[in-house]
């Protein structure tokens, strides 16, 4: 694979970076990244991944664009209200970079469809809005041995980590063994979120994805980043592998995707 003159021009500002170069750009062009959710986190992440020339971007989302999404979901616009988010997203991404392939899946992920889906990609970004999906995505990526960049947010606070147990790092269940029971925490509508926080966290996800593809810099796979927008503080805490982890530990209880992933929408 060689870069065309147009590609060299389009990506020139990152090709001149010593850690990227022409070889790095070809890696990005060959990379396949799947975004679970084309919402608050998926929007900014997809925009930068498309602009950077990630060759294949998959968008999975079962929703349609709603007016209340536009405060933070910048893939979409007033003109695409009512359209499937994945279609709205495809238009925006193609306009930025017609050079890349965009696969859309207008559906929710579930235990039956997720493994064949993630298997077609190199890296998965979790931008889903509920715990059930987050545990499902973690477990599916574990079985498919795919690197997962996970971000989440609540009001003014965000969390970010990279999950790659296939390289010896901890999984999401090593960090949080179980989801909270429904009703214990405010639901999606009640919680609220600062729109720009979605931008910060989604872009950090895109940055970590690009680093993983290029194999540069330091991975955040053994840390959890916590961002507090009000205090303007980024903190990192340790994230060790749990020898009692029910998924990636030496005596796993979870051996396939048959567990119950049907916890209702809670944050």
């Amino acid at each position, binding site marked *: 694979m060689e870069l065309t003159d147009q590609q060299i021009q389009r990506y020139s500002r990152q090709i001149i970076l010593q850690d990227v170069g022409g070889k790095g750009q070809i890696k990005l062009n060959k990379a396949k990244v799947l975004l679970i*959710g084309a*919402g*608050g*986190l*998926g929007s900014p992440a997809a925009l930068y991944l498309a602009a950077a020339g990630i060759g294949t971007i998959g968008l999975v989302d079962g929703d349609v664009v709603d007016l209340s999404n536009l405060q933070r979901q910048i893939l979409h616009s007033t003109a695409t209200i009512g359209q499937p988010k994945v279609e709205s997203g495809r238009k925006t991404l193609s306009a930025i970079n017609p050079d890349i392939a965009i696969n859309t899946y207008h559906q929710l992920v579930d235990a039956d469809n997720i493994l064949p889906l993630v298997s077609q990609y190199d890296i998965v970004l*979790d*931008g*889903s*809005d*509920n*715990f059930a999906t*987050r545990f499902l995505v973690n477990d599916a990526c574990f079985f498919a041995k795919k690197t997962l960049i996970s*971000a*989440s*947010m*609540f*009001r*003014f*606070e965000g*969390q970010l980590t990279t999950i790659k147990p296939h390289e010896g790092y901890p999984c999401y269940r090593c*960090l*949080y*063994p*179980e*989801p*909270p029971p429904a009703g214990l*925490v*405010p639901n*999606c509508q009640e*919680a609220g*979120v600062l729109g720009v926080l979605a931008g910060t966290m989604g872009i950090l996800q895109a940055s970590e994805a690009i680093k993983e593809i290029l194999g540069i810099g330091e991975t955040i796979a053994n840390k*959890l980043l*916590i961002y*507090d927008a*009000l*205090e303007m503080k980024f*903190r*990192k*805490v*340790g*994230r*060790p592998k*749990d020898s009692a982890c029910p998924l990636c530990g030496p005596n796993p209880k979870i051996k396939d995707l048959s567990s119950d992933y049907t916890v209702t929408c*809670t*944050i």
Partner: protein
Amino acid sequence: MIKVRIPTPLRPLTKGQGEVEAKAGSVLEMIETLNQAHPGIKDRLCDETGELRRFVNIYVNEEDIRFLNGKETFLKDGDEVSIVPAIAGG
């Protein structure tokens, strides 16, 4: 004194404060002290049997207490404790 960092979801219990102070020699003692000053916080951190909830992590100086001594983890003056619950918004 121990500095305790309160996450956004629990701030309604601390009148919006993101950081509070507590005098405690262990994490268990810290939870009890916090609960006296901010009633209800213990229920958010521990289940009915008193065990730490499995979707809330407590870090002492950036180390997860599940990998130290759990609730019995010692605290000393100047330690910084962070309470970090799982969040799922996207």
